[in-house]
């Protein structure tokens, strides 16, 4: 047997590797769990299987060339990453984005949020043990959103759509009817999801009171996004530090009650609804005009540094870019919410069963590309 018998320990703890190849780690993420029976005694995460050294590579490429890298950081929310990076460089170089470009950025960032939350909630219920069904349902809308992306920029996942100073293309005309029909059916779909999952006894039994993290602990551990809000802290950068045109939009910030997995799930579900609200406003109010500022291809911002952050689907996604006046960034750092949200993993999982640990990991909604970069 692979189980070692430690000399003086009476009951034998079992070390189980969850990952790097495991159905519920959503990528090559390895969680080394020490179990006493089914109870988790200790978890240690061993990551880096997907480390591509983005931050080093970015120091070798010009500011514009770095945009495709950001796609691949969080491949489930490429638009958000593009946006955050472009905001940082614009801050660094002092570039003003035309109004239509800003609205388009909001449009695609919110679409991306819906797509990402659909994935997160689907896999979360999957981790609770459902046999793919919720995931497939939520993929339905995600597919439509990815189709919109494809219409606009030709790619579905790694969009590379935002540019420094705006967006790459004005969306084609056929995007708008497709978007409107999607927005029309979204409320029904959301009702359907809610009916299927939110008061499902088994989902409740599996996620209520599981993986609890208090508001104090969440703040101290620098959690952000749905985790922080699930713990009851009303903090959303779209409201707190509005970028683009979010200050002109009307939407609400859902906040959880107990900080358990179920609350995170509900917060994500509600955020999708709010995103639909935002999108409806965007469709109504988007102005005409140019969508991209005149930016030199070989941008050489003056020496300096900038930290720009946005509320990505997973939390505070920040880019810290330092320029030394040259064509490439001197330092390019991504504040990855997936990684930092794992800070509280140990507190959330230790002392509960293995099944709960899996559900908790699912509710954190990690993307390994973003953890490892």
């Amino acid at each position, binding site marked *: *047997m692979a*189980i070692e*018998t430690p*000399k*003086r320990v*009476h009951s*034998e703890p079992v070390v189980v590797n969850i990952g790097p190849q495991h159905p519920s780690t959503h990528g090559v993420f390895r969680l080394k769990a020490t179990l006493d029976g089914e109870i988790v005694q200790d978890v240690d995460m061993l990551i880096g299987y997907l480390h591509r050294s983005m931050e080093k590579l970015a120091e070798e490429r010009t500011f514009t060339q770095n945009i495709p890298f950001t796609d691949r950081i969080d491949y489930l929310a490429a638009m958000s990453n593009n946006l955050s990076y472009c905001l940082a460089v614009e801050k660094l170089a002092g570039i003003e984005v035309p109004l239509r470009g800003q609205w388009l950025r909001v449009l695609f960032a919110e679409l991306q949020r819906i797509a990402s939350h659909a994935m997160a909630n689907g896999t979360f219920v999957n981790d609770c043990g459902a046999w793919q069904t919720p995931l497939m349902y939520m993929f339905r809308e995600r597919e439509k959103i990815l189709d919109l992306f494809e219409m606009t920029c030709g790619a579905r996942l790694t969009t590379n759509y935002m540019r420094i100073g705006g967006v790459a293309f004005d969306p084609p005309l056929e995007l708008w009817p497709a978007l409107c029909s999607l927005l029309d059916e979204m409320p029904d779909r959301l009702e359907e999801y809610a009916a299927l999952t939110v008061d499902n006894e088994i989902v409740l039994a599996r996620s209520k009171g599981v993986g609890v993290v208090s508001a104090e602990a969440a703040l101290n551990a620098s959690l952000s996004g749905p985790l922080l809000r699930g713990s009851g802290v009303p903090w959303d950068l779209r409201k707190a530090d509005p970028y683009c045109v979010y200050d002109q939009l009307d939407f609400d910030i859902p906040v959880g009650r107990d900080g358990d997995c179920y609350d995170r799930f509900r917060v994500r579900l509600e955020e999708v609804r709010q995103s639909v609200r935002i999108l409806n406003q965007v469709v109504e109010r988007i102005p005409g005009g140019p969508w991209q500022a005149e930016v030199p291809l070989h941008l050489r911002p003056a020496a300096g540094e900038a930290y720009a952050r946005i509320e990505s689907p997973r939390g505070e996604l920040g880019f810290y870019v330092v320029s030394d006046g040259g064509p490439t960034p001197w330092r390019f750092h991504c504040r990855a919410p997936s990684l930092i949200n794992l800070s509280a993993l140990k507190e959330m999982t230790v002392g509960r069963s293995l099944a709960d640990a899996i559900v908790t990991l699912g509710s954190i909604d990690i993307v390994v590309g973003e953890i490892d970069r």
Partner: protein
Amino acid sequence: MDGVGHHLAFWSLAVITVGAALGILVSRNLIHAMVMLILSFIGVAGLYLLLSAEFIAVVQILVYVGAISVLMLFAILLTPRAARDNAETAMRYPGLILMGLVIAATVFVALETDWGAVREEPVAESARIIGQSLINEFVLPFEIAAVLLTAALVGAVALARRDDEDIDAHEQSLTLEGREDSGGSS
């Protein structure tokens, strides 16, 4: 019982049963021994069927194969790896001699005794008859068996329950004295 089928069934089942029992005897691995024991149980169940005792055969499978062996496997899993061998003690040779003596004596008695009238046809509908005799002739043993089972259940739970003070005291003693060599390793 002189049909070809009967002969075939009896001899194959006898070989399975005794062979599996010998397998327990020689097996060094407790889990392998356990599998052999299960095989032996199944062989005995087959012999019951041959003896037209369907009810007993099914109960044999249900209780021995379905419950007792699973319980034993569970117990094996709960003990540490080092304790999963199936070695013999110093009683090996006395045991062998005693085994030979017992077998010889029993076989002698079995073969030399006149067992009286031998019934050719089995009694049909065994389950109904057993049930009726259980609650008519044997109602007192039946109740006693029920009490015994309950007592055993309670006793097993009481024994296997693990008090927290026990663990603490035990782990303390372990750290003080060190762990005894549990003997054997696998």
